[in-house]
């Protein structure tokens, strides 16, 4: 996973709530067995007018010239709701999005972002309104997202501090740590727990036992 420190880039506004993972990456594109190549299908049904993805919908922000090359997505409440598909953050990342800023995220999507080096930033609704106005109101609106300082900075000097980020998650993201590697270091604790658990609650471990008495 690529470490995340400070990211600077073009922000693209997606001004609608409850954007679900079926919209982020529609089901017909979930059939790959790799993690790459999903970017061209990101927001497919909104981005394209045809099934093949050749005819762009000019009304959709991601297609507009001023937002080309965007790497920061501004969103509204409950972003990433619905399916647990990690294909959603894979598609965002593959497209080039490293930061999603919204007032709230669906739980599984939020977790999935951290596993892929995407930073989900939570700002208050009023702050989001201001950011949307800022980004929509000027050409080439760039933002700087500073993970260490936990700040989003705009070129007009405005600063949006964000909290609600667990220090451990922050550390993992900043170092690009592999979650599994970290957990495997606790093999002794896992084994000790497993033994206690199997002794106190053996009925969870008898799947292969023949019926008794």
């Amino acid at each position, binding site marked *: 996973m690529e470490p995340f420190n400070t990211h600077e880039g073009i922000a693209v506004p997606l001004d609608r709530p409850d954007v679900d993972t079926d919209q982020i990456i*529609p089901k017909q594109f979930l059939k790959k067995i790799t993690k790459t190549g999903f970017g061209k299908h990101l927001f497919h049904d909104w981005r394209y007018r045809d099934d093949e993805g050749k005819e762009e919908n000019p009304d959709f922000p991601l297609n507009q010239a001023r937002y080309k090359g965007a790497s920061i997505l501004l969103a509204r409440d409950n972003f990433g709701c619905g399916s647990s598909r990690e294909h959603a953050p894979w598609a965002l990342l593959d497209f080039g999005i490293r930061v999603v800023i919204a007032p709230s995220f669906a739980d599984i999507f939020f977790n999935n972002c951290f596993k892929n080096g995407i930073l989900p930033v939570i700002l208050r609704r009023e702050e989001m309104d201001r950011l949307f106005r800022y980004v929509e109101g000027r050409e080439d609106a760039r933002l700087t997202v500073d993970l260490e300082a936990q700040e989003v900075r705009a070129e007009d000097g405005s600063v949006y501090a964000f909290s609600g980020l667990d220090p451990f998650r922050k550390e993992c993201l900043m170092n690009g740590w592999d979650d599994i590697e970290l957990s495997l270091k606790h093999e002794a604790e896992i084994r000790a727990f497993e033994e206690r658990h199997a002794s106190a609650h053996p009925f969870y471990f008898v799947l292969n036992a023949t019926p008794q*008495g």
Partner: protein
Amino acid sequence: MQPKDSHPRTMYDKIWDDHLVLDDGVQAPLIYVDRHLIHEVTSPQAFEGLRLAGRKVRRRDLTLATMDHNVPTHTRDMRAAEPLSRLQMETLAANCEEYGIRIYALGHPCQGVVHIIGPELGFTLPGAVIVCGDSHTSTHGAFGALAFGIGTSEVEHVLATQTLRQYKAGNMEVRVEGRLKRGVFAKDVVLAIIGTIGTLGGQGFVIEYTGEAIRALSLEGRMTVCNMSIEAGAKAGMVAPDEKTFAYLREREFAPKGAMFERAISYWETLASDPGAVFDKRVEMKADDILPQVTWGTHPGMVTDIEGRVPDPAAFEDPGERESVRRALAYMGLDPGTKITDIRIDKAFIGSCTNGRIEDLRVAAGVVKGRKVHGAVHAMVVPGSEQVRREAEGEGLAGIFREAGFDWRGPGCSMCLGMNEDVLKPGERCASTSNRNFEGRQGKGGRTHLVSPAMAAAAALEGRFVDIREYL
């Protein structure tokens, strides 16, 4: 196992405490996973990750695989699936063989939708931590388990370590008191709950469903309610286990047997939330107020009852909400003020992890018996598993559906998410017993109305939504 604090705890607190492997206050807590379900769509990259890192599957015995998301339902022949779906199924089969994981592949008598087969095989148990790379894993909470959906990276984490890094959610109680009216089912209860608390109402919480109306539900009904917890934004949903739960599980394939089962019951009986346990958020509803529900929009919170009308965007004060409703109605092709009973449908879909169990098919068959599907409607029934299919065929339900003109299929997720060929065409309107009415969910441009199996069956017969209470 941990020394118990004296303060009263919720069921979620108890299950959490009994699964906490490590909580050093620095790293995210590590919890143990008792049951891991996997399927063809969200597991390939997890196995690939294991292979690349040279890691093993830690507890293959606690892992169970099946094929459901993109299996064909008109045949049990994997070769009939389109090439990419087939590749995912073949990849799952190969991965399970390589790592020694039990798999119920297409054509196996135990194959089915992952959240249907877990419970019916007794793989699902009260008090267990159950995960799967699928958001509707919350279904298993109906047994008093802590069950939730995870991403593919977490699937890999569970395969490698049998644990997960998780932060504890808050406790929320949704109490439904009183008795449900005739014609009102578990699906109506959960849609009414989501309609009341909204798609963010459960965010950050594990919901425990309590109250007389919930206790009165069968395990099938409780599964329907817990299944859609995720649609309210909750981490999980659960119902305290009781005699019904134990009776359901007794003698199931993977459930403990004999003395071990009795020992399990004595533990499971301690799981219910203690009197005085503190919930961070509480919602109380009256069963009597709930009528048959129909969604009109593009998320499950956009719902009204069968006596209602499609709302007018102008009636919403919040500009964001007004715009959302306007956009939803444009997508759904509905005019404000339209009576729900005036909405005509093209398709009816009965099935999914929400409503593809035998009880659902019994109710729907009861409505359909001796009647015919409306001439303008294509209606299909997709049983949730091979076991449900066998039961339904044995009880004569399949015959009832077929005689009425329903298409009787093999088990799979099918049109709930349209990953196989069972999809809506653009503009087609469907009465669906599934869980999501998102744009394009059942097919690009397709229009989904979520309803109970009884309501979907009646709509299939009449070609429009009708009040099921007049039918029973």
